[in-house]
């Protein structure tokens, strides 16, 4: 129940993110986008949020996820700070947990 204080333990490149139990990420054709589903609620994700969360598999660390995204979007500049910023938001929302 009690997790780390949100003010500390910010996301680092070596953390392995996974979805918190009860949170399901999936593609919804009717909404033409990715959504995050949780008890009695749903967040519609924009394209970049969807692309980042799609790489979370509970195995790969943040550094690997950044590498996959940079390979998939070669026209984009370095993505590390954007990815970390978004994952930090996702952590504070309690969508994901880190190990």
């Amino acid at each position, binding site marked *: *129940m*009690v*997790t*780390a*204080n*949100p003010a500390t333990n910010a996301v680092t490149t070596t953390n392995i993110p996974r979805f*918190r*139990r*009860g*949170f*399901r990420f*999936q593609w*919804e054709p*009717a*909404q033409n986008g990715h*959504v995050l*589903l*949780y*008890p*009695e*609620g*749903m967040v519609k994700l924009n394209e970049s949020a969807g692309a980042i969360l799609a790489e979370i598999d509970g195995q790969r660390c943040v550094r690997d996820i950044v590498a996959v995204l940079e390979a998939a979007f070669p026209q984009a500049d370095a993505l590390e700070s954007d990815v970390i910023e978004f994952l930090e938001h996702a952590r504070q929302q*309690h969508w994901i947990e880190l190990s």
Partner: protein
Amino acid sequence: MTALASSLTEQKQASVSPPLWLLAELTYRCPLQCPYCSNPLNFAQTTSELTTEEWASVLRQGRETGAAQLGFSGGEPLVRQDLGELIAEARHLGYYSNLITSGLGLTKAKVDDFAQAGLDHIQVSFQSSDPDLNNAVAGSRKAFAQKLAMARAVKDAGYPMVLNFVIHRHNIHQMNDIVALCERLGADYVELATCQYYGWAFRNREGLMPSRAQLEKAEYEVNQNRARLLDEGSAMKLIFVTPDYYEERPKPCMNGWGSLFLTVAPDGTALPCHSARLLPIEFPNVRDKDLKHIWYESPGFNHYRGNSWMPEPCRSCDEKEKDFGGCRCQAFLLTGNADNADPVCSKSPHHDRILAARQAAECATASIEDLTYRNDSNSRMFFRG
């Protein structure tokens, strides 16, 4: 269909977004008798329930129409022996499925079986943090102990856990105890839902509605607990639904009529919300029409879409896009005409009815025993001439 008619249909569909939520009220049967139940007063008149096959078809059609969230509700959905089968079908279709239960009829084995079948979440309702008050409100002597055991089983099985407390004048003083109980049980979300006055709760409003002083104290205590939980880094979230009877502007009910929510009642009646059955509007049945047609084409679902139906003061109001004139059921219950502005709004010519209810709450003396309990024999009083 002519080309013109078909293009008109497409245009209409484009302006109406898909139903994202499907609430499957599997049955009106329930072992408890809570006097604030949202089921219709005459629920005992509904004896025909959709079959397993019919529900499976409703779930398929709902998913095809765009629904992603699914609630299994009632009555008590566990009364249906085919619940496990429907859970498996829901998972297969890609729904996020929520079981909304009193916990009565649940067993540890069922909690585990349902997880296996793909149920995502179980919400257990409580009536109080105190066993005696809980059981008095529920009209069942064994309810509290069973709820505690099932909340623990839900947690042990690894589900996310939402605990729901319906709040009224007889338990609103228990906020600190309720939050403490939920922390002990390891809840992820706690819904402190003040009674909404529809169905049985409308009938019992005088005996349920808290006074303003009670409400303000409760709000203070909830805010104190929120600050403490945040401080401790707890992920437990408190959701406090305050009663709209103490507001000056109405709630944007259901986020607009026929905009997100689709309820299917036990007999297959499709409704834009679970209270709408009380309105003098003809609603379609899933036994006659498919859900897509019901959502986009039926007169019942189109009745209050948009704002061309609004009379004054809503028609010329600059907030009409924000609150859609409030709740149609509340307008009907309090003014006799569902077109009227929700009387919660201080601009409504019927706002005095809300003020009178607040006044009554200041000097109410009814005890729990004076409430009309939700059970078959009381329900029959409402349809036997």
